[in-house]
């Protein structure tokens, strides 16, 4: 079995290597046959790697301890679905899954790109070149699997019973969090490959944008969703009451998401003839940061809360990043003349100006996060003692950057491309700002006193108002035209992006509320005792013990009477995982729109007391809700483009009446205030 797997790995690498060569040479020499043989080779490589994935998955489910990897991450008692999730828990496995995603996405991309060219027209070369870039990267990943992290390595002690999966990782979110993040990383490879292909071929028109857009949205959503799932796992499973610790690994996944967010906005300004170099740099940086995240987790240069085995893989990734960073920088310099802006920035209150400010702010946040993450290894280079920055550093930076971003997304729905707001838009902006002011008043009445909390409330209120106003304006405009039955559709579709912004607003409310208004207390209770805390009464009714096959669950029954007369029972628990002979904490959470009541039971005994920590997290669920709203926005934004084009473009509130900008209109722009 293991030798079959290794044979398949080798086949995949040869196939991928050939596909990379044939696709790039075929595209440059316009040799159709060579290009088609590249696709065939890639399909062979994908098939071979699929066999490897299936072999490892089957070995994990059937607990085949002849595989070294199975012995490291599974044990005979582990339920099959958690055993399967070990596929992406370990180093070799996660690399395998990542490589498989890269290959599958590359092949899908190759076919959709071909379809795109047939439907819309445009050069074939771009897609073929991008496919070649993808295959080069895939070959690199396969080489690492073969030479440094072999998922198919045979076990030296095949009779063993396995070391088992950490109980911390036995959580539903852990079933899907890692593969989703890996899928996100793999998907960012496609905009990157398209950017590189556009630079190599010199086809720096809108073709690569059109192809990159859906892939960027997919990558942005999967990576963002993956990060949120990871946060939710930390919140529910780690039992320390928080969800984000600015750990190097978390930062590693956040940074490409931030630059990716900026890059998607860059795609929009490119269509206006602006920020071309910035967009390319962002596309390249985003993928670079995805690789950098792997370096962070595998190199062992950090004192991370996530412990991964140290391996040379991290340094291989760093070398790879260095090579492609230099390569891309050279490419951009060579194509500099093709990448100048087609016109100057129109006005400070135009959409492009706000997008630019947003890009700068996101880049700042990324840079500061990177600096904080690297403080430890960098200081280690210069002095004997290494220096770390604490949470305050990151949280402090998040305040100004977060508020600026929130202000930008609050204003942008009522602005237009290419010019400052019209008088009508100005009036609507004032109305939205008024709504924001009333939101501040409501927040004050609700007891919010912190200036940051009030600022978030005001800006979020403005954001909701401006989005609704933009939708209403669109509806009214299109209602007057003769396409009545499509009106709602148009309104919703044209504002998909703003729906994502609304999600961001929700997220900001959740983060601000749960961090600024959080309260915590430690206490011990005896059976039958009742305590009052933060407007609730909590009665410790009983302690129950359940003996299950795999573990022992000891849970406390807490009867809670909430502020509004709502009563519910919370069951915080301690679980003994038999295979590891280790206790784990299971927190109990009661979640409402107003906030979460979070209870941790640390320990205790039947006869005596139990020891609890109670935490109040106001507005916590808004954070998760923001994620779902943004997801809805993305789904709408990804609906087939043809449908959208039929309706919108020029009749949207976001578009100035002037035609698509070109050089001849330069004077018009420079005269605007």
């Amino acid at each position: 079995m293991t030798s079959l797997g290794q044979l398949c790995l080798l086949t995949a690498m040869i196939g991928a290597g050939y596909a990379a060569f044939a696709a790039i040479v075929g595209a440059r020499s316009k040799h159709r046959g060579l290009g088609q043989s590249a696709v065939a080779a890639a399909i062979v490589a994908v098939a071979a790697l699929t066999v490897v994935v299936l072999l490892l998955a089957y070995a994990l489910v059937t607990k085949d301890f002849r595989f070294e990897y199975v012995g490291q991450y599974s044990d005979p008692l582990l339920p099959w679905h958690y055993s399967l999730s070990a596929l992406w828990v370990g180093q070799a496995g996660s690399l395998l899954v990542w490589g498989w995603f890269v290959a599958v996405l590359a092949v899908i991309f190759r076919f959709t790109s071909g379809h795109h060219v047939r439907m819309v027209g445009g050069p074939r070369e771009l897609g073929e070149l991008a496919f070649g870039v993808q295959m080069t990267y895939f070959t690199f990943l396969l080489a690492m699997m073969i030479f440094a992290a072999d998922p198919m390595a045979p076990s030296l002690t095949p009779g063993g019973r396995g070391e088992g999966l950490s109980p911390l990782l036995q959580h539903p979110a852990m079933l899907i969090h890692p593969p989703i993040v890996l899928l996100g990383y793999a998907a960012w490879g496609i905009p990157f490959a398209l950017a590189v292909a556009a630079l190599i071929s010199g086809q720096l028109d809108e073709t690569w944008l059109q192809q990159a857009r859906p892939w960027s949205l997919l990558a942005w959503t999967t990576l963002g969703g993956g990060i949120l799932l990871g946060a939710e796992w930390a919140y529910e499973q780690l039992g320390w009451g928080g969800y984000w610790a600015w750990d190097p690994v978390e930062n590693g996944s956040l940074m490409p998401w931030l630059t990716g967010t900026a890059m998607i906005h860059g795609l929009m300004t490119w269509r206006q003839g602006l920020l071309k170099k910035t967009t390319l740099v962002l596309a390249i940086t985003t993928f670079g940061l995805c690789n950098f995240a792997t370096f962070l987790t595998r190199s062992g240069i950090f004192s991370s809360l996530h412990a991964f085995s140290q391996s040379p893989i991290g340094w291989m990734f760093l070398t790879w990043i260095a090579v492609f960073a230099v390569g891309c920088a050279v490419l951009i310099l060579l194509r500099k003349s093709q990448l100048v802006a087609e016109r100057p920035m129109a006005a400070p209150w135009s959409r492009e100006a706000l997008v630019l400010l947003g890009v700068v702010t996101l880049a700042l946040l990324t840079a500061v996060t990177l600096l904080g993450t690297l403080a430890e290894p960098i200081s280690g280079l210069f002095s004997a003692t290494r220096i770390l920055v604490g949470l305050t550093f990151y949280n402090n930076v998040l305040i100004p950057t977060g508020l600026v971003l929130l202000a930008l997304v609050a204003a942008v729905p009522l602005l237009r491309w290419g010019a400052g707001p019209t008088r009508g838009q100005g009036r609507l902006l004032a109305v939205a700002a008024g709504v924001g002011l009333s939101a501040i008043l409501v927040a004050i009445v609700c007891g919010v006193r912190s200036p940051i909390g009030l600022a978030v409330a005001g800006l979020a209120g403005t954001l909701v108002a401006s989005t609704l106003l933009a939708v209403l304006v669109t509806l009214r405009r299109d209602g007057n035209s003769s396409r009545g039955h499509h009106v709602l559709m148009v309104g919703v579709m044209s504002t998909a992006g703003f729906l994502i912004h609304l999600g961001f607003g929700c997220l900001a409310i959740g983060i601000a509320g749960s961090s600024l208004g959080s309260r915590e207390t430690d206490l011990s209770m005896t059976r039958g005792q009742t305590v009052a805390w933060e407007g609730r009464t909590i009665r410790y009714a009983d302690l129950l013990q359940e003996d299950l096959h795999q573990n022992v669950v000891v849970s406390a029954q807490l009867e809670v009477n909430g502020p509004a007369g709502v009563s519910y029972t919370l069951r915080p628990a301690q679980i003994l995982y038999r295979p590891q002979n280790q206790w784990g904490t299971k927190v109990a959470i009661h979640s409402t729109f107003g906030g979460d009541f979070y209870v941790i039971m640390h320990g205790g005994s039947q006869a005596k007391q139990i020891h609890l920590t109670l935490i109040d997290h106001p507005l916590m669920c808004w954070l998760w809700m923001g994620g779902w709203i943004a997801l809805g926005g993305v789904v709408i934004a990804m609906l087939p483009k043809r449908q959208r084009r039929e309706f919108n473009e020029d009749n949207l509130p976001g578009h100035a009446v002037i035609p698509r900008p070109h050089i001849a209109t330069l004077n018009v722009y420079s005269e605007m205030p």
Partner: protein
Amino acid sequence: MSTTKKLVIAGLVVAGVTAYMAYLGASSSWQYYMTVKECVDNAPKVTGRRIRVSGTIEPGSLSITADRREARFSLSEEGSKLPVVCTGTLPDDLSPAVPGRPTKAMEVVVEGRLEDSRTFGHHVVMVGDKLITRCASKYNAQKNEPTATADLRNPETMR
């Protein structure tokens, strides 16, 4: 003033405020990251300062209060030892050794301050408020069957 100039100024303001906030945050929260040996050797220099120390819990030295809010242990590395009192939420896999069972050396990272103290017979004690166990993705297999105890995670009964 041209649009570009206005935007540059706006960008600089955002960058300036961010940099200032980062500076404030860094100056109030930065800490040394050191090994036990470095910490013991430089004790006078780092006393009172916020530090993060990594090392191994000396087998047998760990004791945890019944409410699992405080752990005491001796952190050791290359012959140097540092007594630690750590409060706050303790990680799940931090538990004292059970007699008759192989004890594994547990690698941890503790954040806190070094304070003068004579209670432990040492000159300094580390007062921690955050503890992380390393190696969360792998565990050593234990041959013995667990004792399914009726008492829930009570160090007294587990000991």
